């Protein structure tokens, strides 16, 4: 429908809502003084990103995002916050760096990115207005993972194994002095 002369679809409304929530939560992540609340903001922001994935025709990725990021990583971060309890009192205004300076730098960076995005002439092959309509389901992701990308896939599994062992070793409490 047209509002103020602009053509607006329901999906655009949905996008604005989701993206607004995401960005708002992201701002919360960096500005909320209490680190536990910041972590919760991260959870909201990750849900928002999952919503954006869903809008981009990637339902599998959206669900994976929720499962791994929200279900696992955020939980892990919150647990880590608990285990290092005292840090929660440290707030934003004890920031190491002059926040205004940092904001200026990040803002200029954002401006550049915005200019680049707005002025990009997309190469042929990119549909600009709307995602292409091929349904990319779970099966195609699986095929892609196990055929052309099998090598990085295996590599990722090795990395995960190494991380599993490494994290246990690092976080393990040193029991006495093993000579």
């Amino acid at each position, binding site marked *: 429908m047209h509002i103020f002369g602009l053509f607006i679809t329901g999906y655009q409304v949905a996008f604005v809502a989701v993206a607004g929530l995401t960005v708002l939560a992201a*701002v919360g992540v*960096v500005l909320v003084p209490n680190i536990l609340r910041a972590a919760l903001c991260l959870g909201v922001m990750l849900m928002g990103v999952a919503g954006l994935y869903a809008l981009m025709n990637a339902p599998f990725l959206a669900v994976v995002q929720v499962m791994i990021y929200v279900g696992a990583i955020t939980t892990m971060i919150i647990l880590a916050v608990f285990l290092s309890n005292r*840090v929660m009192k440290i707030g934003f205004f004890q920031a190491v760096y002059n926040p205004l300076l940092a904001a200026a730098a990040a803002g200029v960076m*954002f401006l550049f990115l915005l200019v680049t995005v707005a002025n990009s002439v997309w190469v042929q092959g990119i549909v600009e207005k709307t995602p292409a309509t*091929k349904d990319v389901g779970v099966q195609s992701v699986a095929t892609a993972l196990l055929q052309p990308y099998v090598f990085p896939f295996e590599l990722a599994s090795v990395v995960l194994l190494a991380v599993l062992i490494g994290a246990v070793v690092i*976080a393990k409490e040193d029991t006495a002095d093993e000579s």
Partner: protein
Amino acid sequence: MSHSLAYGIPISWFLTVGAMLFCIGLFGMMVRRSAIGMLLSIELMLNAANINLVAFGSYLKLPSIAGQVFAIFVITLAAAEAAVGLAIVINIYRNEQHIDADKISVMKM
């Protein structure tokens, strides 16, 4: 229903959101004092990159699964990074009773 979900949304919108998240993450990296806070900011930036990957993947005329696959790898590595990072944070906290990234100066404890 899902195939026309994003009807009318240009790719630049997604890219702009990505850019926003990225810059917010950068800002967080600069102002956050605790190591966990910095980790949160890194997650922000990783997600920003993921949004771009998926956007380009699904806005191709011949949609490519590569964008999603790469996003999955990024998520995997983010999980790995978070696990190791948090393990280190906990270890540091146990030894020094703080996790201020700017005060950590000893590599060996």
